[in-house]
């Protein structure tokens, strides 16, 4: 599936909950719990993205021209959000990632977690993923 298709799938999943935010959040928390763990040796300072309240660790690899992300967070809601984004970006080409718009976030009503003033690291995470993708496209090995 490409990014847009995954987005569509997520939107449909969330539509099931309608206005019931509690179920929505339970779903996010579940996704957080099921996020494949980042390898301990990759939980380094280099891979940390500090938000104001919670931290996110993100590791990027390139395999067969596709990007592979593993991640973690110390807050479970953040981790759930991370899981959603990883699900969208995982196994996609650097090109597609760097072009992605990520419209689904507004649609599923989790905007407050991604508002620029809520410095929880998620925005910086997306920015970092896209930067990593761009760097790979430009042949740079620097993924800071």
């Amino acid at each position, binding site marked *: 599936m490409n990014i847009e298709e995954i987005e569509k799938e997520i939107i449909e999943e969330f539509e099931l909950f309608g206005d019931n935010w509690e179920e929505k959040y339970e779903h996010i928390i579940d996704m957080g719990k099921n996020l494949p763990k980042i390898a301990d040796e990759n939980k380094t300072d280099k891979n940390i993205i500090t938000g104001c309240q919670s931290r996110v660790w993100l590791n990027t690899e390139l395999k067969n021209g596709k990007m592979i992300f593993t991640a973690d967070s110390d807050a479970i809601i*953040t981790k759930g959000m991370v899981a959603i984004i990883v699900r969208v970006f995982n196994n996609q080409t650097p090109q597609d990632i760097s072009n992605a718009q990520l419209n689904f976030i507004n649609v599923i009503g989790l905007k407050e977690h991604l508002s620029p003033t809520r410095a929880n690291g998620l925005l910086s995470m997306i920015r970092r993923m896209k930067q990593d993708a761009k760097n790979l496209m430009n042949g740079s090995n620097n993924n800071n």
Partner: protein
Amino acid sequence: MNTTENIRAQFPILNKQINNNALVYFDNAATVQKPKQVIEAIENYYYNSNANIHRGVHTLSRVATELFEQSRKTIASFFNVKNSQQIIFTSGTTDGLNTLVQSLSKSVLQKNSEIILSTYEHHSNILPWQLWAQHNNGKLKIIPLKENHSLDLEKLEQLITPNTKIISIAHVSNTLGLITNIEKVKEIAKKYNLIIVLDGAQSAPHMKIDLENLDVDFFVCSAHKMYGPTGIGILYMSEKWLQELPVSKVGGGTIKTVSFEKTEYEQGALRFEPGTPNISGAIGFAEAIKFTNIVGITSIYKHELDLVNYAQKQLNELPEVIQYGVSKEKAGVISFNVKNQHPFDVGSLLDKYGIAVRTGHHCTQPLMKVLNTQGTIRASFAIYNTKQELNYFIEKLKKVITMLK
């Protein structure tokens, strides 16, 4: 009649819906809501009397000056300070502390001087001293906590050396709500002739403070935590310091005569208030004090203490909850965590139910280290909060704990 209902009616924001739930505002230690009298006093000033103060020859300027100086007097008398010149307007507690440290660094502080702080200080009462210390080879000594998270004042005396000049200490911990035993601190400070700086940011909103009798050297607080507007606070200093403290912030209004070579400064509060002050802020602050006087600061204390004790008791019954700084005598603040859960998660979900709490380190990172946590969940109360709100909060907290499990 000061029923909670009557009081709540004076705070229109309390009727707001947040995420389809009635707002339950438990973030009062960060900033409290303002009664409409305060907002109207600010409006009124701008609609009827706005002008720059001091030196003005025209009517509006005289009226504005009178309102401003009357505000100073209202605040002075709230704190039982007879000479209102001892009340210096600042833009807040942090501003007051920075100005003070800079002025003290031109007088009592020397290279190698030592300052005593407590473990539960707010960053605003750490960083100005730390910055000074870094440039001057100074040292910060820290009063440790006891098991129950209150200050271990038995250890205070050991920290004092011949280089110790100042004890700068929170009157109330913003994270824990615990009250510092100032009488005890004073006893030791007097013995060694130390200057006492009292950070009253969290005590002034909740407790009767009589500065004439408290007899500390300096006291700071912020209006926005006392039902007043943002951008204004006070620095109180004793008569002695009002005469002797060197200025560190200067500009228009602070002087008698200026030439490029030499300047003669004013006397009294003016000496420390350069530039156009926050006039509307001072007027709003005084109106907030009037509100507090009508309700009565001791009623406020009692009401909030009831809430604190009720909340502590309720939380005590939840096995998943760890509380910090539990005590029967606190000033409007409780702090806790849910075991194995990040405070951010708990706070985010409570917000969904319309409950505003603060989560994180509360600008007290050194305290967090001692409590061995990244952050806590803090609920802090004001005169308008109710037991019903607390019941709702406990109910939803239980729900959140289940969701996160």
